[in-house]
């Protein structure tokens, strides 16, 4: 079914961009799941002290999220560029 007159198949580049947007929406969900994992494994209740591991794990997740967001931002910035003209583009000439 076609909606709102959009073409049924998108060119490769727009297709990539669409999926990129999907990924951008899913990233926080994935991040939330990863962040919640310590709540299942409950560090500090384990017989061996593993707070340090827990810390390393969390910073690992954190760094992964930063990298993923960086990649997605670079991919999505052109989409913003296309949508939005910089504010006051006309005024700056003065």
């Amino acid at each position, binding site marked *: 079914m076609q909606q*709102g*007159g959009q073409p049924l198949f998108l060119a490769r580049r727009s297709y990539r961009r669409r999926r990129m*947007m999907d990924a*951008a*929406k899913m*990233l*926080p*969900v994935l*991040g*939330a799941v990863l*962040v*919640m994992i*310590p*709540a*299942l494994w*409950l*560090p*500090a*209740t384990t017989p061996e*002290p*593993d*707070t*340090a591991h*827990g*810390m*390393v794990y*969390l*910073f690992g997740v*954190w*760094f992964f*999220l*930063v*990298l*993923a*967001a*960086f990649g*997605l*931002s*670079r991919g*999505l*910035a052109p989409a*913003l*560029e296309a*949508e*939005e003209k*910089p*504010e006051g583009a006309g*005024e*700056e000439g*003065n």
Partner: protein
Amino acid sequence: MPFNILVAVCLTYVILLFLVAFVAERRAQRGRLGWLRSPLVYTLSLSIYCTAWTFYGAVGYAARSGLEFMTIYLGPTLVFVGWWWVLRKLVRIGRAQRVTSIADLISSRYGKSNLLGVVVTLMAVAASTPYIALQLQSVTLSFGVFAAETPEGWALPDQGATALWIAGGLALFTILFGTRNLDANERHHGVVMAIALEAVMKLLALLAVGVFVVWGLADGVGDVLARIDASPIADWPLQPARWAGLTFVSAAAIMTLPRMFQVLVVENADERHLATAGWAFPLYLMLMSLFVVPIAVVGLELMPAGTNPDLFVLTLPLAAGKGKLALLAFLGGFSSATSMVIVAAIALSTMVSNHIVTPLWLALRQGSAREPGDVRGLVLMSRRVSIGAVLAMGYGYYHLSGGSAALASIGLIAFVGAAQVLPAMMGGIFWRGATHVGATAGLLTGFAIWLYALFLPSFGTGGLISPHIMADGPFGIGWLRPQALFGITGLDPLLHAMFWSLALNLLAFVVFSLASFPGPMERLQGVAFVNVFDQAPGARGWARGGAEAEDLLSMSQRILGTEEAQRFFQGQAAGQGKAGYLPDTTPDFIARLERQLAGSVGAATAHAMIAQLSGSASVSVQDLIAVAGEAAEIKEYSAQLEAKSEELARTARALSAANEKLTELSVQKDAFLGQISHELRTPMTSIRAFSEILMESDLSEQMRAKYAEIIHEEARRLTRLLDDLLDLSVLENRKVQLNIGVANLHDLISKAVTAASNTRPERNFVVQRDFSTEHMPVFTDTDRLVQVFINLISNSRKYCDAERGVLRIEVKRRGQQLRVDFIDNGSGIPKKAQGLIFEKFARLTDTSRAGGAGLGLAICREIMANLGGDIDYVPGQGGAAFRVTLPLQRKVPPFDRSGAAQADLNDL
């Protein structure tokens, strides 16, 4: 480290901040924005999330509760990596609707209801005041660490005085740089730059202390990890509910804290900056958190028992004898505290002045939108006073609470308070069914529970809530105990309050939204918010109303400032294909004007002010359905049609304006011969009659002289008329020889004022000038320019009907253009005649007393056209107002540029 040096360094740092803010503001004023609005600066400005509570408190938090502190930074991280989803929409809406604060966002979404704005404002003030007090306390405490003999003692003889000085200094800074302009959508470049610098400062300081601890006090990463597992911190209990709850509430707070909303949405200069902040801000948070646990662990190990872990960042380097490092850490903490307070004060003062003071003022002066009065000054002043009041309240709170331990927990309490806005905000931007009633119910429910179950008990038993109520509930009703609502006991008090307040808030919001019916304005705004991405310029909220463009202009001038308002009106008129300053008051135009005003005074007030002028309650349901409504699924098609018909309408308007003018002109052309005939015959009549008298009768010498004088005078009048006609025809054919020279504008105006004083010399007439602005060189035909000035001044002397005539001459430089405004205090030129005054013989009165033939302004217009400039009538200035526009640099042919002109320049 001597205390004096600390004070000196601190003062130097403060002066540096003022300087940075000042320079940034200057650069921005000159339009050299450059890196002032780079994504990096935007990202750094977001770091006000990390207050002193982070800088000092995170280590203490880690020392007490292990890794739980990370939730406070992981929550925002999740929000930011998901920027595409929520933040982008928030920022887009914020810019499309020119939102000034979070209270304005909520008020605007729910039908521009000011009541909601007031509710959110009060909540924000209640939640932020203790938080500001906490920042003051942290700075005072850190001062105390340095002042005391031993690092453990914090006894500063006059702690209160320190806090007072800091509060005063911050108020000064915020008022200076935070209320420079009214339009909240214009950025506070100075403030943002200073905050960015402070962001760098606190990150560097914390990293430096961290590096020192890991590689200086401990033996590198491996050793630190081993020490962590060996330390008491390793025994921290992770409570899954708290872990999830805190992550959630901090994720909410990053969007709903008034100060965060301010930097995130209101100060956002470009939506694309979000793409950078999406990864860079999480990175910043990560770096801020990186060394927290190592510092806590090493601190617990090395410092004597009983040392306040909240101050390890300072006391560890001090104990190790690293005075300079401690000083850096101190500046980091100072930066964290001050930047938070500054932005919070700006955000809160905007909310208080837009939602409480201005509406009150408007209500007290009902029906007075037309009357003169400086709204702009009032709003700016109320913002300044509000800033002072917010800081005074923060200080008062600090003073009263006596720096009690209660403050330490206030960070999370404020987060939960701010999060109460979340359901109304998220519902508002994603759900069209959310209504004003639902939002009010939800907010009030959540706020009440927060107050009762978390905020008031935070003062400790025996504080604001009696121990009796805490233990047995009010009136002995057990299930209403503040920390055990509905009989559920044993929960962590924070989690308990967070759960019940947000759950019941959401429930009330949804149920009341479903059960109520939104008004037309609300539905319109709902569509505008929820569908912000697939919308054409936006739904309009006005039927074609009775508002006069001139009234709207004079009202807008009082809010936006004269120049800004005129530029806006001129732009809109040009967009409609009309010249001048008065666009047609189409619904589109009024909607745009309203949004423009909303950027200064908030949506609700802007709406109310325009409603006062147009005398209509904006849209009806029928209008609404006609305008957009839910049935507009044929949007794509109609958008195209609309674009075309708008184009057509614009052409038609331009055509009809041209046609009207042509008709007028042809009537005039027809009358032209009659006019010339009249103007020539009148003096000739006197000449002929008196010559006959002189010829035929014996007159006394005195009479003869008198009549000869009349003949002479009339002959000169005739000559003048012929000169004017010739002049005009030369000017119109652009064949005039211009003598381009350079002169000081001030001298030219003085010359004109003197020359014009011959006109009705008996008149009580004052010319007001601002000499300081007049001194600038102009390259033009100076005689011609003076001729124009003389004409305008004489006209004012002749026609200004005020008892005591006052003419204001204002000179302004706008880019490459020079503007000279001549504004008098008479009753001005009627709107109907404004289009005609520059036509030939368009004398408005028939008085020959006026002396001229009605060619003056026509000549002026031709002269200005020849000089490459323009002359316009500016309506709505409270009198007749003419604006002469002149290019600063004439495009002179190359041969004119060399030699003489250059020499003249050097002489200046």
